[in-house]
């Protein structure tokens, strides 16, 4: 049981390049999330999904896109990378139900630097 798997762990991009951060979970969780974490700023929600085929914008969606074609996968695409997107990105998932709701399982994180 791998939990939430994110790749890559580290990446350096040049301004204007594009890339996709991959996220997969094997817990059959219906909810998935992408956060970014900047020093001293906590976790900011980029996009989230309540199930396959459904995605919604979070607080900081500009410059990103997502898709959710399967329950397991929730990739995050960065188009035209900018230095402001330098951050640590976390994918997370959770299940619905009173006992499990809101308890996120996080991936290990992806450190992205845009130069």
């Amino acid at each position, binding site marked *: 049981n791998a939990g939430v798997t994110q790749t890559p762990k580290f990446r350096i991009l040049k301004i204007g390049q594009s890339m996709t951060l991959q996220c997969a979970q094997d817990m059959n969780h219906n*909810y998935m*999330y992408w956060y970014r974490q900047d020093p001293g700023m906590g*976790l900011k929600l980029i996009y989230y999904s309540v199930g396959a085929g459904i995605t919604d*914008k979070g607080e900081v969606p500009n410059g990103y896109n997502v898709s959710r074609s399967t329950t397991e996968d929730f990739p995050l695409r960065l188009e035209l990378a900018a230095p402001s997107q330098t951050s640590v990105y*976390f994918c997370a998932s959770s299940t619905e139900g009173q006992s499990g*709701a*809101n308890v996120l399982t996080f*991936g290990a*994180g992806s450190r992205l630097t845009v130069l």
Partner: protein
Amino acid sequence: EDKVVQSPLSLVVHEGDTVTLNCSYEVTNFRSLLWYKQEKKAPTFLFMLTSSGIEKKSGRLSSILDKKELFSILNITATQTGDSAIYLCAVGRRNYGGSQGNLIFGKGTKLSVKP
């Protein structure tokens, strides 16, 4: 806009000290309050609190929620250097949706425990 405020933002103590971390919130449709510990990588789940006045305990860590005054505290007794981490508070909401999603994070408290 809903918000979660943690204090202090950073704290330095010596091994053996007892610390109290604070989390206050203004959130509509409150469902749960969660504490996470983040060391060098992804946040890991500590506690979920849904009812006022009921203490959750795990070893030297304990937490309690006050839904009337809208805050929670996380206590760590007999601190050890391994307790050094960022402690994140998050509040879950009942109704999903909107740019904040269903889980709102505070900025975290950075705890440093010196030998």
